[in-house]
């Protein structure tokens, strides 16, 4: 980051200049599919990427661009492309880097849809993935092959809360000539800016903490611009003739922006998982208070941990800020302000007790999301992972008594009272 505005100022202002004609203080919602060209030369110039502007909202949109520029500023990126969801952001990233016959090294402990994309979808198109433990840097090093195009993982694994040492693994990846792509959904740039700590590309599900309100889906890819795509012959999608723009070489023509240009000109242009302008507007409103909310998420998480650790109805508690967490030291180094607001814990009484707890909470919401301003709880054993055998649960780092709590912003006394009564109900099972 340069001598730039600080986090909360950027959260409120970055990427937006009020227009001269109307002076709207809030970011306007440009709910339009297309844009009137000034003349044929202007239209051609937009298609040739020789002037800035918008030509069709699948590719870019003024409201979405404010969101992209704001997140790029917060994450110290050279540019960003917003997408319809976090999964779409991951997909367009893979699309920009990988082709049939290529290979990915990925953390094995992460969001199920990420695993499914790599294991079951990409493999059908000839892209193979080797999964390794997120906290075993040597395993990442050993898994990189000559055809590996990216190393991938989540800083804070979902739902197991393993911590990936992105500084160490980023160096391993970069030394091998491969970029580190990080899903930073659980940490947000408030807790950790991955690009300043070893990553080259960052992906967020904006649906979670960044938006914070649970009213709009969205994702984003942020390009650090800090990876030299021309250092080897590994990235022909960026260093050889591109099918668009008169066969231009993106690396030569756009330099550090080669990757993000490919994401927009291929991922958005040819596939089209674009973010709606209205959702972009909602997400911008959330980001305006990201710093304040994350402070509160962290303080409530600390109180919740203290409560759970001392409650007789809880058999175990897992969070990266607890000294018995295997990645405690890494979490402390990477995220001194806190390691996220998701807690895993076990309810005494196993699967049935967990189910009873979930069915009795009143303030907390029982649903399949995280990062909302409201506290969310789920019992994977009886819901999202109910189809798994005990062995499969164990391999995914899950147990049948496990609760996943996404700590929200409520007055903690109300949360404590709610959890107390739900745990009393669970104890009767």
């Amino acid at each position, binding site marked *: *980051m*340069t*001598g*730039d*505005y600080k986090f909360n100022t*950027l959260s409120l*202002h*970055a*990427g*937006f*200049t009020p227009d001269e004609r109307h002076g709207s203080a809030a970011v306007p919602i440009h709910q339009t599919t297309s844009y009137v060209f000034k003349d044929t030369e202007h239209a*051609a*110039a937009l298609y*040739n*990427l*020789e*002037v*800035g*502007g*918008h030509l069709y909202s699948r590719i*870019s*949109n*003024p409201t*979405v*661009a*404010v969101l*992209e*520029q*704001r997140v*790029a*500023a917060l994450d*110290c*990126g*050279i*540019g*960003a*492309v*917003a997408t319809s969801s976090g999964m779409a952001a991951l997909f367009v990233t893979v699309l920009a880097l990988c082709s049939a016959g290529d290979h990915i090294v990925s953390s094995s402990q992460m969001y199920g849809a990420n695993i499914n994309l790599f294991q079951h979808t990409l493999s059908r198109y000839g892209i193979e993935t080797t999964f390794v433990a997120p906290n075993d840097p040597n395993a990442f090093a050993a898994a990189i092959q000559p055809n590996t195009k990216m190393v991938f993982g989540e800083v804070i694994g979902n739902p197991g809360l393993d911590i990936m040492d992105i500084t160490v693994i980023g160096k391993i990846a970069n030394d091998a000539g491969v970029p580190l792509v990080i899903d930073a959904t659980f940490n947000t740039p408030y807790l950790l800016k991955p690009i300043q700590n070893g990553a080259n590309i960052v992906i967020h599900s904006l649906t979670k903490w960044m938006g914070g309100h649970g009213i709009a889906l969205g994702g984003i890819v942020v390009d*650090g*611009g*800090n990876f*030299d795509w*021309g250092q080897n012959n590994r990235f022909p999608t960026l260093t050889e003739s591109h099918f668009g*723009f*008169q066969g*231009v070489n993106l690396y*030569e*023509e*756009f*330099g*550090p*922006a080669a990757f*993000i240009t490919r994401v*927009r000109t291929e991922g958005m242009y040819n596939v089209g998982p674009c973010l709606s302008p209205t959702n972009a507007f909602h997400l911008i409103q959330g980001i305006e208070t990201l710093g304040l909310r994350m402070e509160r998420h962290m303080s409530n998480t600390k109180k919740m941990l203290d409560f759970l650790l001392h409650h007789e109805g809880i058999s175990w508690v897992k969070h990266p800020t607890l000294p018995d967490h295997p990645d405690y030291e890494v979490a402390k180094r990477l995220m001194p302000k806190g390691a996220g607001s998701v807690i895993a814990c076990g309810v005494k009484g196993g699967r049935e007790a967990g189910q009873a707890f979930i069915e009795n909470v009143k303030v907390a919401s029982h649903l399949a999301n995280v990062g909302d301003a409201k506290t969310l709880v789920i019992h994977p054993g009886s819901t999202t992972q109910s189809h798994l055998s005990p062995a499969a649960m164990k391999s995914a780092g899950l147990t049948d008594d496990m609760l996943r709590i996404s700590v929200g912003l409520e007055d903690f006394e109300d949360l404590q009272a709610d959890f107390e009564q739900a745990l009393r109900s669970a104890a009767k099972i």
Partner: protein
Amino acid sequence: MKINLNGEIVFASTGGRNFELKGEPIWFIHGSGQSHLSFMLQGRFFANRGWSVIAADMPSHGLSSGVPLDTIEAMSDWHIALMDSLGVEKVQIVGHSQGGLIGLDLAHRYTDRVSRLSLVATALSIPVNDNLIDMAKNKEPAAIKAMIDWGHGSEGHSHDHTMPGQNHLNYGVQMMAANKSGALHADLKACVNYDNGQSAAAMITCPTQLIIGQQDKMTPLKFGLKAAEALKTVNVTIVENAGHMLPSEHPEEVNRALRPFFTKS
């Protein structure tokens, strides 16, 4: 395109179009610690409108190999050698910042090789703070950050960009960081040591123009206007809300000013 010049690789952007020598090419010369990428939107704009365009990375910059040159005169001679290797007899120059000093020197010493000279965010001399030169030598990343910070005006610092989703400051840092270590220090020393701008300007006979950023902290407006006076040019464009990194920060205004200035075969 890549050119072999005296055993070193020179990368020259041709604006995304194959280079075909037509008339007098527009010859972009980048500033200190910059590369062809600082003219990305000018190069594409003119190449797509039928001009021959060259934006070369000087040695140790961007995608070019070699040892950085340490005087403005040596940089001018290098550009002449590159023109010779491409069979280019005469060019229309756009020089940004230090590239403007090189343009002044070229138009003065090689009058038959320069038909038009456009100076963007430059002056007759570019004094550089000793601390910055020291930082460029010993703490290059800090020097790059400082230059990118000072080099952008209010629009760059607002993180608003004409190209959707892009970020001026962080792109600028990564673009400069991609040069070989030592290139920035050599450039800044070359700027400091060049003191021939005033007399060169008095001798230049080709048509000239100046494009100046209203908020430029590195080559402030008053120094740009002094250069205009010395060159006796009335072709001056002042771009509001713009800092030193004019070509990337305000590409449309720069292109609008440049376009009528150049001739096309």
